């Protein structure tokens, strides 16, 4: 992280890099809905990611994809790491403004 902030800001490529990270940062603490390769859907708070798209979701619930249309009780999983290679799609909940859990000093 420190290495990127130290690079001179003139380079357009670097600016874009920073943008990508800034966008991701905005999504932190928002609700994500991730569909996995085995068809399960996870809904939880986006907490952390890395270059390989491994995503950590907090207070996560697991929804089984119901073929017969019947909705099942979600199963509460808590803190969950979804490996990037198992992610099929990611959706973001934009109903509420992201809750702020802390204040910048």
């Amino acid at each position, binding site marked *: *992280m420190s*290495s*990127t902030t130290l690079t001179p800001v003139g380079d357009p490529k670097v600016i*874009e*890099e*920073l*943008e*990508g*990270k800034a*966008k*991701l*940062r905005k*999504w*932190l*603490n928002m*609700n994500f*809905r991730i569909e*996995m*390769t*085995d*068809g*399960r859907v*996870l*809904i939880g708070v986006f*907490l*952390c*990611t*890395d*270059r*390989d*798209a491994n995503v*950590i979701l*907090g207070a996560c619930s*697991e929804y*089984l994809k119901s073929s017969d249309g019947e909705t099942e*009780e979600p*199963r*509460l*999983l*808590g*803190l*969950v*790491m*979804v*490996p*990037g290679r*198992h*992610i*099929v*799609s*990611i*959706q*973001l*909940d*934009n*109903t509420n403004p992201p809750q702020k*859990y*802390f204040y910048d000093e």
Partner: protein
Amino acid sequence: MDSMPAAPEVIYNWVDITSDFFKYIQDLQLGELLHDGHLFGLFEAMSAIEMMDPKMDTGMLCNRGNPKPINFQQAVACGKLKIDNLEPSEIIGIIDATMACIVSWLEGHSLAQTVFTNLYLHQPHSIINKTLKAYCIAVYKLLDCIKDCINKAQVFEEEDFLPMGYGYRLGSNPTMGNAYDVSLEVSEQKCTAMLKEQEEELNKKARSNDDEANDLWAALAARIRFTRMFYQALLKITKKDSQSGADCVTLLNGCSEMIKVIIKTVGKGTQPAENSDTPNPMGFEPMVNQRLLPPTFPRYTRIKPRAEALQYFEELVTRLRHAWKITSCTNFHTALDFFMEFSRQRACILSRSALQLLYLSPSPASTSISLGSNVPPGQRPHAFVEILRESVKTFVNPPALSGKTASGVNPPARELVENFLSRCVRPFTVLVQVCGHNRARQRDKLALLLDEFAALQEEADNVDALIGTAAELVPRCFSTWILYHVVRVMIAYLLSGLELELYSVHEYHYIFWYLYDFLYRWLLSALGQAETLAGDVRRDKKATNRKQKKKVRPYARERLMCQVMQNMCGGYYKALVAFKLQGKIRQPQSEFDNESVRYKHRFAPLSVLSPPQVHYHEFCEMTQNLQFEKPVFLYLEGCKHFQEARTLLETITIPDQEVNNLLKVAKTNFVVLKLLAGGHKKNSSTPPEFDFSAHRHFPIIKLV
């Protein structure tokens, strides 16, 4: 769940960001984490469950292609589950699979993932086939009884046994969940009566049918009979009453016979499909309880194969029969030896628990906590006090307990002794309990126990001193008795480190030195003192007790074994010092190592007791002479020790397995050290190997 007020509906507005997300993450460096540093760090990240990891993700398997697990009603409705008109081979298959599940449960898995994957057990009262119904109800009762036995004995740890019931109502009303129906109550008597009735029915069928079918019915009858007898035997052990003795032995013998028949006929039942996770084609749904388990639970339990499970049952019955012999151990010392021997064979949790209950039921360890250390006068002392009193009496025969001498009738002295004995109850029952735990857990528990024994030692010294002033001359009876047990616990503690492979080779020399020069020496002297004490008094008042007179040297065998061990330890110690002198043992780099710290740590639990711990500086002082010896001389010394051990062992007329193993070790090491003394591999710096395969504590030294 239905009764809970519906949570307010959450409305989401999902926007797909998949492609953006995958684009943006490319801006991250390899290994860089994008996270909110205030609330979430690497530490939290590490505790997340990894999805799609077969070990961590419980939801994974059940979704993979498999349809949703079906429950009892659904299975019956769609014809997958027969509740009537079952072929005998089908029932045999179900019973054998259920037994395999029970074994898996007894090996530490959860009930929900083992026995209760059997759908028949979800609604035993809805089964129409009478044999299967009786069996299923009996399984409930049996599980309850097993759980009761293990819970009462309190010698399990989380790795041994999972007591959770997951909402299945074990016990008198075998139903699931909250559906309680009084009419379905089944008492123990009713359960056994049901099984007996089925047994007779099946035997009738076996007689009336032609050869092949007759075999099947007989095999089924054997299973029902085994279940009944096993259940009854276990009930008798758990709710031990004195009259049931002969009964219980007969039942267990019957179990042994039946299990042999069951093993022989294991092929008669329906078999699980190859590579299938289901223990039987019909009636089992491995994932049916998945939702009852917490999210981080091991998702999946492999059920033990039938043949192995049945063998487990056979061994279990043998162990239970063996455990029964504890009831004839009247002497505490023999009982304690029995417990230690039993534990050495690494018995299963159920037999270990049964052994505890057979000896001490209900456990005085738990009752004496509530009583506190001071039993109010007038309260009936626990039977265990009597056992201990007998033990002291036979071991050292203190005048205070003999009842005939002056101090015996002296009320203050008597009270003193009574108080002391009642204080002994807890530490000694805990000692028995520790022996019931699994081998790996015993070590820590022994260390804790040493603290309690330290307090007892003080007390014993006081009692001896005070009685001494009351009567004219009284030897240190109680102290000797306590000392004997303390030293045994200390030895067990040090040896367990060898068994659990906790010490490195470069530490062996002081471990063996301590055992050789102190612990076994103290034990021998305690035994010697006990013999003199007991003998003295006996001579004083000739022929008061005919029984005691017969045994002249009651501890001859124990002393001999003690000398053997001492010599073995001496042999290792000398050999190890010689190895060290010859540079054959890899030493840790001095800047990372401090022998004194390690020494202190190894012997720390012994520091609270008397005889006082031998400190590191004393160790250095006492052993420094050896540093100047020639290795050859040390090898010869070691040789002599092993030779001595061997000679002693060979005097034993009826050697058991233990003696034979020790003999093998002593003989081999004798030869190896002889070779070394002769200069064999003198210049090689290859470290010798220590092979514990022949004996768990005493390794065979191997030169490579």
